[in-house]
């Protein structure tokens, strides 16, 4: 039975389900307990599961991310909340040198089944140190799965899947999407990590998007359909494992690729897709590859400047127009 709930509520349901099923699952983070998390994702969980399983931590990212690594290695399944992805840098050693490496360094004999939930994105006036979208950096570190659910439905299913996965998972949400509404089944279900989804099949132009850019791509697709342009929109859903086949299949079909992700242009996840296509499907390309991304700047505070940072539907349309010059 499906009903309409928000993205945040969907995540909450996933957490509650997993904590109920498995007492090794626990939640840690700043203000996740009594306050319910600054975006209310963990609302009500401490009342239900107690202070030991929904822990308010000191402001010590290194300690509690590293602590999650130690707990995960010794039989627990921690779900850490990092308040904004920007703060993960305080725990970078624990993420890169510890969490991502233990399984490999110890010859497969240690597992680190933990989830780090973060949010990216500008648009809430939170300025340069609370608005970044540098999730692509982690794609460059082997040993970390990266999930990016774009709908409340996928948020619930992918979080349950991530918690049950024996690997470290960086679970990337968007701070403006917590109030998005969507259909979510009441019961528990999983959505696989590492599988992209063709949310709108089309034959003219391929757009591969993440998080908030998926909805924008769909809006643009509907508009352009009326003008005779048939866009194929793919929700990438995971940066690692990366569903290369889905991307390549679509590019071979349409001869085009537009990527859409809020990270900065240089080193955007679209850059990796562009390189992938250049390596494996060059002969199919009829037009240049275009990355729709944020500019190579920090996010400014001033509202008009902040708005200009966020890739828009117009940016997508401009990208499509450029590609159409070659078709």
């Amino acid at each position, binding site marked *: 039975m499906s009903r309409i709930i928000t993205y945040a509520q969907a995540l909450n349901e996933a957490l509650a389900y997993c904590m109920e099923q498995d007492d090794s699952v626990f939640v840690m983070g700043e203000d996740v307990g009594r306050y319910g998390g600054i975006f209310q994702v963990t609302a009500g969980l401490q009342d239900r599961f107690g202070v030991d399983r929904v822990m308010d931590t000191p402001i010590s990212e290194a300690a509690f991310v590293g602590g999650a690594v130690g707990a995960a290695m010794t039989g627990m399944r921690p779900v850490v909340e990092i308040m904004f992805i920007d703060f993960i840098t305080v725990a970078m050693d624990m993420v890169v040198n510890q969490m991502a490496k233990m399984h490999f360094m110890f010859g497969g004999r240690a597992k680190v089944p933990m989830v780090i939930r973060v949010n990216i994105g500008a648009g809430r006036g939170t300025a340069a140190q609370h608005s970044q979208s540098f999730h692509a950096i982690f794609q460059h570190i082997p040993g970390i799965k990266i999930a990016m659910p774009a709908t409340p439905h996928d948020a619930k299913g992918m979080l349950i899947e991530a918690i049950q996965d024996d690997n470290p998972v960086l679970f990337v949400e968007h701070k403006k999407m917590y109030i998005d509404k969507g259909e979510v089944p009441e019961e528990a279900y999983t959505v696989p990590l590492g599988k992209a989804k063709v949310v709108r099949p089309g034959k003219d132009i391929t757009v591969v998007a993440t998080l908030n850019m998926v909805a924008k791509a769909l809006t643009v697709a509907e508009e352009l359909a009326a003008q005779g342009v048939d866009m194929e929109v793919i929700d990438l859903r995971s940066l690692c494992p990366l569903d290369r086949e889905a991307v390549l299949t679509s590019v071979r079909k349409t*001869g085009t690729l537009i990527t859409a992700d809020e990270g900065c242009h240089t080193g955007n996840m679209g850059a990796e897709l562009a390189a992938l296509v250049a390596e494996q499907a*060059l*002969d*199919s*390309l*009829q*037009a240049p590859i275009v990355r729709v991304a944020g500019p190579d700047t920090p996010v400014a505070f001033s509202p008009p400047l902040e708005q200009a940072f966020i890739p828009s539907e117009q940016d997508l349309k401009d990208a499509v127009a450029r590609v159409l*010059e*070659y*078709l």
Partner: protein
Amino acid sequence: MQVNTKSQVRAMPAARSLAREKGLDLAAISGSGPEGCILKKDVEAYRAAPAAAPAASGPAKVTSLARKLAQQKGVDLNAVQGSGPRGRVTKADVLRAAAAPTPAGGALGGRKVPATSMRKTIARRLSASAFTAPHIYFFSDVKMDSLLALYKDIKQEILERHGVKISVNDLLIKAVALTLEEFPNVNASFDGENIEMWEDVNVGLAVALDEGLIVPAIASANIASLWEIASQRADLVDRARDRKLSADEIQRGTFTISSLAQYEITHFTAIINPPQSAILSVGKTQEKVVAENGQVVVRQVATLGLSVDHRIIDGAVAAQFLTSLKKKLERPALMFMELG
């Protein structure tokens, strides 16, 4: 052999791979994309329809020479008054129109026409040849009387036996091919490091199109019979005019013959067609007064020019080549004997 066109022409990857698949030379295809980029659809369309008529097509009654000249000089034929028979536009008319001051335009007047991708490719390749290969030039006056007599003698028989009309050029091609066999250094290519002496002797014949010269090559001209050469030549020239040559038919050439014999040209110097190392220019065969054994006689004389790449072909070799060729043309019987 491989002519390097891959980096010079702008084309989308899908266009490039389709052209490769269809054996098309990208240099011959017009790009409709931004900045003249060749798109996949341009390649798809190329096969489907022959090239459109040149821009300056003008009225029907224009001599072909006048048409060519008009294009070269950027003259709008529609604006030219024809003074030839029944209002035909002649070369003189075009020249007059070209000399006249233009109504609009800047200080020098004139028209700006964007160069086609083919013209740009030609420009690039010939510049590369001229500025990379040090050219040296040799000329020889050849008495064509015997050759012309041979031609007259056998042409009917070949027509009846093989259904092929031979031309004097075919005899020239054969003579050139046999001479190339004797001089492997001339049937060769130099890349700066190695001299590649080609096994095949594929003699190219320059064909003038409105957009520029195109040089299809007659394959294995040293081994082919005269009527086979004629047959290839006729087919290649026809298809060149229809822009239906394959990339290989152009790229396989190992030597080029460029003839302006139909013009009032005594002799001229040609630029080598890269990556070949030599080119033969052919001037008009004309009646000339010559001395023979102390007697004054009139003979049909053509001046042949040979340009060679001095990096790998020295003066003596070039001279020997041209001398050997001349001997064959003046005594065609030599072509049927193995003479060193």
